[in-house]
């Protein structure tokens, strides 16, 4: 794991949590990423990212109640931890620093 610590998808997932606020579970996260980025993401990749983030201590989870519209199956709710928020800041800072003064040149490169 790098010092900046977040893979692309992990970054997206954490941001989705911040956007959705407080507690969330798989479906809203998937929806948020898909609608925001406008691109489909791999379901398995998202669930694996959730596990990995939890393993890193950036997310915490609990098993929710079973609901009928889910065929009587329980949800797993995740919540971003303090460490998760801190990690987001670290990553953002690193990215911003790296992006500093780049935009103009990138635009030129594009045209």
């Amino acid at each position, binding site marked *: 794991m790098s010092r900046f610590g977040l893979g692309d998808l992990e970054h997206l997932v954490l941001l989705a949590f911040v956007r959705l606020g407080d507690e969330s579970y798989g479906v809203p996260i998937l929806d948020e990423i898909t609608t925001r980025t406008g691109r489909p993401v791999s379901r*398995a990749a998202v*669930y694996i990212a959730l*596990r990995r983030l939890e393993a890193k201590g950036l997310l915490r989870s609990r*098993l929710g109640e079973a609901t009928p*519209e889910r065929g009587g199956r329980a*949800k*797993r709710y995740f919540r971003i931890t303090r460490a998760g928020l801190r990690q987001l800041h670290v990553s953002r800072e690193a990215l911003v620093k790296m992006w500093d003064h780049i935009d103009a040149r990138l635009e030129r490169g594009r045209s």
Partner: protein
Amino acid sequence: VTRPPALAMRWLERSLHPDERDELIGDLQEQFERRVALEGQSQARRWYWRQTFGLVWGFTRARRDVISTSHDRRLGRWAVSNVALDWTYAWRSLRASRSFALVAVLTLTLGIGLSTAVFSLVEGVLLAPLPYPDPDRLLRLAEIAPPTNFQSRMAAMGDRADRSSVSDVAIGAWIATTRTLESITPISTNGANVRTPHGVEQVDGAEVGSAFFAMLGVRPVLGRLLVDADGNGNAAPAAVLSERFWRASFDARPDIVGSSVTIEDHAYTIVGIAPEVTFPETGVAVWTAGHWQWPAIGPRRMFSVRLDVIARLRRESTLDQARAEGAGVMKRIALADPAFADGTVPIATARVRTLRDDLTAPVHGALVTLMVGMVLVLAAAGVNLASLLLARSTARRREVAVRLALGAARWRLVRPLLFEQGLLAASGAVAGAVVAWWILRSLPLVAPPDLPRLSEIHFSVVSLVFAAGGSLAIGLIPGLWPTWHFRGVRLRHLVATRVGDDGRVGSGDRTRRTLVVTQVALAATLLVGAALIGRTLVALLEVNPGYDPRGVLTFQVALPDGWGRQAGREGRFFDGLIARLEQNPDVAVAGASATLPLLQVGFAGSFAIVGRPKPQTPDETPVAIRNAITPGYLKAVGTHILRGRDFTSSDSNTAEKVAIVDEALVQAYFPAEDPLGQHIGWSAGRVFTVVGVAESAHQGPVSTPVQPTLYMAAAQLPDILAFNAYTGGVAVRTKSDPINVVPFVRTAARELEPDAPIYNVMRLEDRLNRTFTGPRFYAIALGLFAILALSTAILGVYGVLAYLVERRRVEFGVRRALGAGERQIGWLVLSESLRLSGAGLGVGLAAAASAAGLMRSLLFGVRPVDPLTFAGAAGLILLVAAGAAWYPSRRALRVDPSEALRME
């Protein structure tokens, strides 16, 4: 009602870990219902399937990555339970114990590789049917003369090493009376000078019965093959060329069919091109139809033509009927001979066997020996694997006890072991296949020259599967047994930290000992086999061949047939050639001879000793190989004159006729007299005075006995006896490597006589060495087997002793504390080693003694049950066992008494 596809859901349920099943399937369901509302049921169901695939695939892959790269064990919880994962675990666990894996895979690789190669060989040579239609009805006929018979004595000296020919009388009688054989065809092979667009070439030719090709079911590549009409005495002479010869020497020209070719000064019409026929030998380039006259049955003659004969059995007849018929033919021939009436002439026997059995008979014993060796090696590999696995499962005892106590299913405990062994077997099989492939590929280089059907040996996948399965099965059962049958789950197993301190000799212990005893037994058996072959090789190398092959070049000359009609033509040619050769400063001496050592061409003939009564029966007639030589020949090959003198240039046609006899002849016919000055001969005008005695030289391989030989000066013999009947050979003794003079020899011969090509140019040493290839091959094969088995036995003995020392640490400590010296402790370990290997030795040597008879045909100069060899093998095994005990006994000595007591 909107429901997700039941099958997809069930798949998810099965493949997802229980911890995440609810969450993932629930989430999917939630979204599925939304989709149904949005885009309809069928679209949504399709979406559900896609998601299912994505999940299962994604998780499987992720799990694999996580397991091999992640440091975070917690992630393992999401493992999807599937087969790929089991393989991953197996791989990991083997990587964790590398030395075990290495030894196991190495054992399997060598075991599987060697045995696959051997089995492929045996399958190709012994088991596979001949490449002809209906091959089991192809027979080989042979007339086996009784051993005392004059004919068989002559044959034993003569050109055919294999005496499976039939006399012309018997062929005629057989053809005339058979009811069980569809067709019978004689075959006579010999060299033939063929005029090709590139000059005269000496090739192998075969004169065959006209039914030959039809009998083998061979189809022409071009034109036609021989038919019945060609066998007719007044048919136009027809020749069939082999495809290879046609391509190499006639540039594959299709218009060759119908044109004329000159073979041995006779014109033949080329009627067709035949594909490769591997019988009677590979490499026959020209087939012609033989026109034979079969003499009527009558009193036996001194000489008769003998030919190889093959036949095809009628569909409605059996082999036994054909045999009975053959015996009948022999009896009729014998009854027609007046000599038979008084019962003094033993009757010949007919041997009728399938062509395949006949081809493989000479190597049958060798291949069966190899096969037995292979099974032993496979067993050794399996047993080694078993003991390795046993050691591993013993090390897991504690873990198994805990897991069983906590309620694990036996199947769950055994399952990873199964995958582990599957992985071992797969690696062993793959590497073994490579080894086998490599061995088979290099086989043509090392195979004994008498191995038939070499071209039909192919890599056998069946045998690979068989070998891998066999060694695995032997390893699997003892390897899994302890885990599967684990009993005695006691608390003490859970708290015990030391190996085996439950203080009793468990069943694992007994199994372990049995395995080691088996290993030693296998090693002992193979060691005896290898030692016997090794001693055979040494014995063969120690035989004095009767000539000195170092620095000698030999070659043959294909003399044109027409020379026989020109008096002195051949003699002039050889004199000229030898004179030219001796001008080269590298050539010490050169000589020509009617036959060369190891070419198995010799002319055996009877002779009389002047002054002795005429023998009453043919069987009492003196017989010897007659060889006509030029004065330099004996010096060139290095055969010493023991008494008297060698031939000189003054032994000319006009001088007194002289002969040199060899020691074998002296022993046979002049045991008490001085042979020098005796007169021997076979007809008026052919009487020779013996002027010298030469050492006996083996004309064939050194394993065959020397035959009485009579040398005569070529200059004193009419050409017909000197060289014409036989393709002459020339021996050249050189001062450096004989190969250096080859270009010179070729040029000299071509310049002297373009119509007499030289061929078979070879160092005499190489020719001799080639006869050792067979024994060397079997010695190497069995030696490898023995080394493999011996090393597994060493490992086995070592393993058991190390285990024993570990288990008896406390005991050793106590003994030390009570005053036992180093020697006593060392002896405890050593004696255990000797006990185990002694038991194995007993079994192994007994097995070797009973199986040694198999090897009889392979042995020379050593008896199958040779006390010295057996003692040597036993000594080596005991020595090795003692060596294996050394390190464990050091460890036993290092046990600190006070520490051991504290442990107690």
